[in-house]
């Protein structure tokens, strides 16, 4: 008996120890298998490529470390550790990392507070307070930065792991874990860019100002140097070298004409390989805010001189206003003005919502963009240029000829009959690639072109530009409290459009940074039910999913019981 007991207990203990060892061992050596179709838990191909191009050590100092971290933040921290471990592996050790608990490394509370504050103010990292109870029972809190700093060849940048600590905490942390890879590789990419490319917003012709493109330029600022560019100096004289050193020139909604010299400078900028992103209006005077004060506007064709240049490069900017059935809504006052009239949302055919053609890396997987009083393009048959339509009108269109009058009342009162919108679709955003011929070829005196000092070029090398027939596509609005509304937000319906992603993709593509686009587009596919089918088949599906499984079980049990009865009665 005693012998038996001893044997059983030894068996049990052996089993227990084996389990314990297995358990501990599993934490030292583990693999992960990603079953999802979008491979959302696997490193992106471009990440692996990036790791192979590293030629010096990138060091991460992660501040998300403290003995009082709650469990959900610990999960974020461990995911950071795992991602960095994996990156370190595939980069042959070129990725190094260190977790730093500021409460251990800096003894003096004042200096510590200062360095935490610096991380927030200078580096823009979110700080979370974490309450804990001291040994004597007193409540205290520590402040932990939700981010890291990355160092490479003597330069450093902040790496935010959690962008906002607001809203649902669990969701934010889950999202942070999913976006870790992007944040880390993004930091490495930014550090690797030896010379920052320069993007300039052209000024001086009534273009969108600094605040109008604040959101757009802020997203460009992550990768490029951005700033304004003026062709004329303070005395109003054009400077031939004004655009030197600029890689991408953005011309956003100019409303005043360009002088010949200015045209020449822009033309030669393009001939010499400069990239241009133009957002042009075909009409002047058509603005929603002036409509809201006057109720009516007169739109006239707009001639800036850039349109003439574009014609030479291969596209014609149509002098009309697009009316599209696929449009966003705006509030229109329906009762008499005065004592706080009532507003109602109306489909506003002058604010088309353009769907992505999904045919190019620039617009792959992008949601629609919204435009206001846009125009459209026609392409001319120039052999050396390849045209790619990125966004176009829906195909249920009318094109309003200019000059013309646009009023709220007419539009709101008009019964929209889709039969009236018969005109086909036209491109609104176009990518042009190829060798552009100079606008000034055969236009200026030969003595001038022959002058060696001036270095006139009459044809560009391989170059590309993007033209968009709307200026407001890059404009962010401000709320009544003067807070910036993110670019692409429809302030009336709170729908988000992809204006910002599209424009940033344009800039990335023009500057040859396609890999930035592909990383950003690692988007988890939205898997949705077909809402129309759900509506139609709701009852049927509900009954099917209730009755069929239960029916099957009842049938099996019934057959089983009958079968037993028959067998027993024998």
């Amino acid at each position: 008996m005693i012998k038996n007991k001893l044997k059983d207990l030894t068996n049990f203990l052996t089993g227990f120890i084996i389990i314990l060892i297995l358990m501990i061992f599993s934490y030292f050596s583990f693999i992960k298998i990603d079953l999802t179709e979008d491979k959302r838990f696997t490193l992106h191909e471009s990440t692996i490529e990036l790791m192979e191009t590293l030629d010096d050590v990138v060091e991460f100092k992660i501040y998300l470390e403290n003995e009082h971290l709650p469990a959900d933040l610990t999960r974020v921290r461990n995911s950071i550790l795992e991602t960095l471990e994996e990156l370190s592996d595939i980069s042959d050790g070129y990725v190094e990392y260190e977790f730093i608990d500021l409460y251990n490394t800096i003894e003096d509370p004042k200096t510590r507070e200062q360095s935490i504050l610096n991380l927030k103010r200078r580096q823009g990292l979110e700080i979370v307070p974490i309450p804990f109870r001291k040994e004597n029972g007193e409540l205290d809190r520590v402040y932990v930065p939700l981010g890291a700093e990355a160092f490479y060849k003597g330069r450093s940048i902040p790496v935010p792991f959690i962008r906002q600590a607001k809203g649902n905490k669990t969701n934010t942390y889950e999202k942070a874990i999913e976006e870790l890879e992007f944040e880390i590789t993004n930091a490495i990419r930014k550090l690797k860019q030896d010379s920052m490319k320069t993007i300039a917003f052209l000024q001086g012709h009534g273009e969108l100002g600094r605040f109008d493109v604040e959101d757009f330029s802020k997203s460009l600022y992550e990768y490029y140097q951005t700033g304004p560019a003026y062709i004329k100096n303070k005395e109003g004289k054009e400077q031939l070298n004004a655009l030197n050193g600029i890689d991408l020139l953005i011309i956003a909604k100019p409303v005043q004409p360009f002088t010949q010299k200015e045209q020449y400078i822009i033309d030669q900028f393009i001939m010499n390989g400069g990239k241009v992103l133009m957002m042009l209006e075909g009409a002047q005077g058509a603005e929603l805010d002036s409509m809201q004060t006057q109720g009516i506007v007169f739109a006239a064709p707009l001639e800036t001189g850039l349109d003439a240049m574009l014609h030479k490069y291969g596209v014609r900017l149509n002098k009309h206003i697009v009316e599209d059935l696929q449009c966003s809504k705006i509030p229109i006052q329906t009762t008499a003005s005065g004592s706080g009239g009532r507003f109602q949302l109306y489909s506003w055919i002058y604010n088309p919502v353009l769907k992505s053609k999904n045919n190019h890396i620039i617009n792959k997987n992008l949601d629609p963009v919204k435009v206001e009083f846009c125009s459209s393009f026609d392409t001319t048959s120039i052999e050396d240029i390849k045209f790619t339509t990125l966004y176009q009108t829906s195909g249920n269109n009318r094109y309003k000829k200019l000059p013309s009058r646009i009023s709220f009342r007419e539009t709101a009162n008009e019964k929209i009959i889709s039969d009236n919108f018969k005109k086909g679709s036209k491109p609104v955003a176009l990518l042009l690639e190829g060798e552009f011929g100079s606008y000034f070829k055969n236009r200026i005196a030969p003595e001038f072109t022959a002058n060696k000092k001036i270095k006139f070029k009459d044809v560009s090398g391989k170059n590309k530009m993007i033209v968009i027939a709307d200026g407001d596509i890059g404009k962010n609005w401000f709320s009544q409290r003067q807070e910036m509304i993110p670019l692409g937000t429809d302030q009336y319906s709170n729908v988000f459009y992809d204006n910002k992603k599209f424009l940033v993709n344009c800039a990335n593509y023009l500057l040859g940074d396609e890999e930035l686009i592909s990383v950003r587009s690692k988007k988890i596919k939205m898997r949705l039910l077909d809402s129309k089918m759900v509506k139609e088949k709701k009852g049927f599906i509900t009954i099917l999913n209730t009755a069929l499984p239960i029916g099957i079980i009842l049938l099996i049990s019934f057959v089983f019981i009958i079968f037993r009865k028959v067998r027993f009665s024998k």
Partner: protein
Amino acid sequence: MIAILKKEIRYFFSSLIGPIVLVLFLLTNSLFLWAYAPNEYMNILSSGFASLEPLFALAPWMYLILIPAMTMRAFSEEKANGTIELLLTRPLTEFQIILGKFLAYLILLILTLIPTFIYYYSIEFLSHGNIDQGATIGSYLGLLLLGASFISIGLFASVITKSQIISLLISLLFCLLFYFGFSLIANVGNDTSISYIIQQFGIEEHYYSISRGLIDTRDLTYYFCLIGLFILLTKVTLVSRKW
């Protein structure tokens, strides 16, 4: 061993315990996931997402109640009736007896899951095939492992007592503790430094990533170890009768 397995399964159906458990499970599922919509995200049709995630969020809670109810009689009844002695005189090791019972309950568990494939095909139909198949397979695997862990806990609870009610209560308590008790303790505790380690003991922590389609060998090992541990405990309790 096969004989025990067969005997157990026969018992489920003839005693109507099996059909009742199955119907209860399926009926509750279809109510929450398809018919009744108290919470937009629980109901598949009103959530609008082509995903079986609501099922994998709901099912652990159902198993938490149903599996202890199923397993409570596994050994307690035999002990109360004295048939356990009969069982043990058979030319079988204790381990084979336990395994036979474990597999029988596992088959019943699989039987509860098979009819939910209809849900999968409904979603596939409603979304034109836009459901993530790989992730769903992972989720089913996770649910199966979770259920199997509950079964092993239930067997242990059943072997330590003659009373079925006590067995039910003990296994409920243990399942609750292992399912989410540990994460609860981890989040309540003031000393957050060890909270992460405590959380690692819980099933929920290991269920989370597998139910989204990421199979991590650490999670798999956890489940196998948990199941192994309780089967070991069951065995040692069963043989301790001879001491």
